[in-house]
Every structure is written in C-alpha cells, then in structure tokens.
C-alpha cells in the first residue's frame, strides 16, 4: 500500500472520481415510478400496457432496427444504470450487444439472475426449438428456439401477464393496479383478436415467404404457411443459387407473397417478386417500425391490413 505513495496519478484520479461522486450523487426520491428499460419496442409496448402511469418505459432498440444487430452504445448505459427492471426478449436474440451493456451498467438490480432482470421468453410459446445438434453450418441459428415470438397475440397476452406479475413483485403496493391493467389489456386484446381472426380467416392455409425466419408465431396463429426464406440460412445474405431455388419453389407452390422486415435490402425480394409475379410486403415485426404504429394493437392492425391486401 505504501507503494501508492510513489505514484500519485492513481490516487489523484480516484480522489477526483470520489469527489465528483460525492458532489453529484443524485437525490432520487421523485414521484414513485418504476424505471424500466426493455431490449425491444414490443416489450416496451407490453410493459406500458400493464404498467400504465406507474412506470416509465424505454426501449434500447428502435422498432425499425434489426434486433440482432444493435450497437452497444454507451448512451444506453445512462438508461440502464437507472433501471429498476430490464425486460429482454431472450433466446439469444440480444447476445451480440446486451451482455456488455449489462456488465458495464454498474447497476446490480438488472444483472442476469438479479430480481430486476426479466427474460420474457419464459412466458411465451416458443417455436423452432432445435432437436438434434446445432452447428454454424445452419447459419446464425438461434440455438434455444425462435426469439421472434411476440407476433402472436396469445403470446402478447402471456408476456403482459408475466410482466404484470413482475411489476407487482417490484412494487407490491401497486400490484393490484398492474393486475387491473392486465385484465383490461386482456379484454381489449380479446376484442381486437376477434376482429383480426375474422380478417385473417379467409386466408388460412395461404403460402408466404419471409426474408428472415421471424414470422413463425404469427404464421402459426393465423394459419399461414411459410414455405421458404429469402435468406439461405438464418443471418446469411441471399445467394443466387438459393434465390433461384426459392423462385422455383414459389412457382410450384403458387406462392405470391414475400414478407420483408423493414431493415433488409429490397433488391433480392424485388427480383423474386418480378420472376414469380408476386408482391413484396414490408411488414413490421415490431412496434415503432412506422411512426404511427405506436402500440401492440396497431402493430397487428398494420400487419394484418397489409396481409389482407397482399393475399386478396
């Protein structure tokens, strides 16, 4: 320890740091609101539904951004360090960017395994769970199952319920309020679902192609049949040979609709559409993908509207 005396730089820096901490240590007692950060906008939307005005929610990823490739910007740390709760999609969707942010946040509440870390995938029905061995020859496959699970209203309901439970655990005084909000959400969702089910009913069994495999839960719920992907393997950009194969398949199966997430290039989908006489539909996988798609209900309104037009 005497050694430090010979080396003043560290001591000085530490002293400055500690002084700054002391001076600016914030006085946190404002109006009691749970501070919640979510990995994606969909989790934010569902959290907002059940949290009402007792929470303030912010998403790290934007709705029009590829959720696999978000940059771990330090500005997110400013949000994370204040968070009481972090809601993640899980199933390794955020593996490329969230772990370092959690580590660097200096926030013990949201560390993996802590009480303020919530993996929403535990509440949802998960598809495409690989049986057998997973190798990278399959591309950047999600080894724990498909993380794009929120596009099924039933999963939305289950996630909302799970989040409501967690909010009540973190803020027991308002547990009743969150349950009430959940019941209300459940009712509104059931009503909306009746309309969506009716809208989509004529198209049950219809065939579609998607760019990335981010549509299975929606397809399952509404009885659509995803027969192929523009990506030859998950995360691998289109190759000419795969594209030719896909065009052949679409012609054989009389499939006319190519669904593309807003963050993918349209060049290959457009050329597939030209060759097959099909249409490219830029559907939204997430809330906030377009300016006016501001909540979970509008997300389905938007996508179902697009699909009805395309499948007619």
């Amino acid at each position, binding site marked *: 320890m005497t050694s430090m005396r010979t*080396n003043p730089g560290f001591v000085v820096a530490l002293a*400055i*740091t500690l002084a700054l901490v002391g001076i600016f*240590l914030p006085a946190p007692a404002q109006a009691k609101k749970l501070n919640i950060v979510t990995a994606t906008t969909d989790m934010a939307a569902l959290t907002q539904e059940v949290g009402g005005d007792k929470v303030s929610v912010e998403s790290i990823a*934007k709705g029009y951004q590829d959720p696999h*490739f978000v940059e771990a910007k*330090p500005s997110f740390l400013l949000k994370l360090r204040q968070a009481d709760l972090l809601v993640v999609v899980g199933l390794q969707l955020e593996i490329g960017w969230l772990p370092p942010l959690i580590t660097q946040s200096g926030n013990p509440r949201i560390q993996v395994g802590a009480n303020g870390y919530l993996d929403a995938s535990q509440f949802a029905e998960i598809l495409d769970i690989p049986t057998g061995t997973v190798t990278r020859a399959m591309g950047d496959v999600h080894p724990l199952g498909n993380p794009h699970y929120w596009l099924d209203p039933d999963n939305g309901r289950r996630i909302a319920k799970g989040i409501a439970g967690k909010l009540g655990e973190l803020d027991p005084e308002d547990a009743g309020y969150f349950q009430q909000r959940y019941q209300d959400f459940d009712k509104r969702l059931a009503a909306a679902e009746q309309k969506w089910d009716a809208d989509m009913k004529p198209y049950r069994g219809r065939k579609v192609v998607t760019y990335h495999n981010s549509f299975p839960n929606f397809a399952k719920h509404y009885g659509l049949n995803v027969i192929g992907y523009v990506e030859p393997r998950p995360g691998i950009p289109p190759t000419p040979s795969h594209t030719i194969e896909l065009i052949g398949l679409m012609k054989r199966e009389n499939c006319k609709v190519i669904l593309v997430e807003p963050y993918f290039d349209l060049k290959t989908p457009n050329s597939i559409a030209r060759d097959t006489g099909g249409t490219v539909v830029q559907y939204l996988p997430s809330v906030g993908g377009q300016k006016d798609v501001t909540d979970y209900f509008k997300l389905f309104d938007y996508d179902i509207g697009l699909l009805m037009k395309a499948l007619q």
Partner: protein
Amino acid sequence: MTMRNSFLPFCMTILFGLPLCAQQAGTVPAANDQNAAMEQHIRDLEDRIIALEGQVRMLKSSATAAPAAEAAAASAAPSAAPPAPAPAEALASQATGTQAQVYGGAGGSAAKALNPDISVIGDFIGAVGGNSPPPLATLQPFPSLQMHESEIGLQAIIDPYSRGDFFISFGEEGVNLEEGYITFTALPASFVGKVGKMRSAFGKVNMMHNHVLPWIDRPLVTTNLVGGEDGIDDAGVSIERILPAPKGIFLEATGQLFRGDSGDVFKAFQKNDVSTVDHLRAYKDITESTNLDLGLSYSRGNNDFGPNFITNLYGVDATLRWKPLRRSIYHSFVARSEFVWSQRQQLPVEQRGFGYYASADYQLGRRWFLGGRYDSSDRSRYANLTDKGGSLVLTYWPSEFAQIRGQYEFTKYAEGLNSNQLLMQVIFSLGAHGAHPF
C-alpha cells in the same frame, strides 16, 4: 432433462384428451355453453403448459447464473445437473421471478449449462514484400506465413454479482494469458471493478484484441510508443464509474493500478514500481445514427532503462461513428484518431516523443469494408526518429464468424528506408457467439 421428458407427454395427454371429451359433450343438446366453457378450459390448460415449458427452459439455463440473493445460498453447492428436487417447489421459486437466462452459450443443453462459454478465434496472416527494417526500428515485418494467434475465450457469469472473462492466446512463441479477470458488477454507488490481468484503458486500440482491429497490424504509434501488440496489458485492479454529466452526455472515469510490467513500456524493478492508467471518456449521440466518442488517457510507470526512470504517456482519442439504423447491417462509417505523447526518462536525456494515426472505415455492403490508415510516430527511445506509413485495407466477411482481409502497407522509416508490404489475413471464430465490439 428428465423432468422435461416425463412432463411433456403428460401435458400432451391432457391436451389431446380434452378435445375428445369436448366432442362428446357437444352431442348433448343445449350444450353450447358447456362447449364454450370447455374451449376456455383448453385454452387455460394450453397457457399453463406454455408457462410450465417456459419455466422448464429457465430452469435448464439457470444452473450457472444462480438465482439472486435469497436463493443463492441454497444453490451454492455445485451439482452437475440442474437440481431436480420437488419440482413444484422449484417451479414455484422460478415463478416468483428469480429466473435467469445465460447469455453466450451456443449449446444451451443442460449438460453444458455449468460450463463457461467457450470460443476459439484463429488469426492467420500471410505477407509478401517488406524490407528488413533499420536496426533501431521498433516495427518488425511479418513472416511470410504465420498462424499469428489462436485465442481461446472462456466467459461466464460467476454469480449475480460478478462475471469472469479469460482470453488465452497461443502465438508462435508460446502461450500468453492475454486477459483474465473478474468483473464486479454489483458494487455500491454504481462502481464497476475488475481484478486480474487486463488490457488497460489507455486509448482505444490498446483495449482491442487483434481480431477486432479494423487492420491486420497495429498503428505505428502503438508499436513505437505504447508497447506494441500487447500494449499496456498487466496484472492489477481497475475501477470505473459513470459520472454525472449534462443530459445526453455519457461521461465515464476509469482508474487502474498495475504491477508495472508491460511489454517494452513499463518494467517494475521493485514492488513499488507500479504503473497506473487513468482514462476519461465522453460520448454523445449526435443523431440516432451518428455519435462522437472522445477520450483522455494518462499512464505512468517505471521504464526499462533502470529503477527510478519514469515514463509518462498522455493520450487523446476521438471516434466518429455513423450507422443508419434502418440499414445498419449494410452501411456504416467509422473515423478514428489517437494521439500519444511520451516522456521517457533515460540517460543522457529524457526523450519526448509524439505519434498519431488517423483512420477511416466504410462499410460498402453487408459483407464488404474498405478502410485506410495514416501513421506517424517518433520512437520512444529515439524521439528524433520519426517513422511514417499508410495502409489500405479491404475486408470481406463470408459470414458473421469469418473474415478475410487484405492490406497494402507503405512504411517510410526515419532512416530513409522505404518498405512496401502486402498482408493477407484470415480470421475465423468457433463456439460461443461473442458480443460485437463498439
């Protein structure tokens, strides 16, 4: 595993059994209400199965990241498989929200759950051209063909309060613990602490592993003034904290204390020859796609001239990044520069050297990057000798897990000797999906 195996068929039986009952019930007149009730019942059961499935998934993955606080003691005893005692209790404890999800695993099977995430990164370099450097030069040319480095990464969350990271590199000369440290993530007052061997926070490039550099080699200023490939990489402790700052600005201070042995920069002759590194980082989002990242660094330690000969290093770094969010996987741009001033006490006179690099990298498409770098640096021991250079770099990523890179490099040594070199690099990564550096 065993739980899942016995549990799912049970759920299936219920699921498939019920519709049969429902149909029989439907033959009874005026049973519509009953039918609806039955349908609701099935839906409820389905929800319960999905909830249980989710809890089983969480249980399978929670073996490493032990549940927080209250449950930590109970699960302290290491066991090879997820504990499967009274499942009801276990599930109940999960349901109360002590779930955990482990990041980084490529497997996700229960048998692997207790192992750290393992990754291996191979770095192969080939070179043609390049003159033999003048005798006093720090920069050495690459051999014709070289398995430059094989880096093994072992990473895991240790407990809810810390994580561990090991990077062991096998080079041509032997094995080196590049980094091995524990990070304390749950310290009071938002401090983050590290203990172990680590790449120090002096500037940007010093923190980067070889395989995440945008070039094949390191800038001249690193080679000449900051200890070369390994840079300031030493055993010690580090503490960092985000500092209060005006809204929208991220300000972070890091203080590090090391033994004082780092390549040819620092050498400890006695126990109190420790070295220090201090770093202040300011970051701001200018728009959602553009950001500016600035840093100030200071380092001090005993140099290898002898006991009580000190080297002071001062650094400034600046990075401008652009990445449009809607097309983030296709286009991006990074411009970066680092300036380093070195004061090296030696006989007969102290050497004051300066060096810098300026680089830019543009992502042409999903798989292609084009970049350039300009180098200029004095040598730390002979500050009146200035080497200069320039590089042009083209990188192709066949997938997220492999990259092929070519680099043309021109070097003008201080002695007047010119050197042209063509480098080729293949980097490939196996195993766990690491986080992308920022």
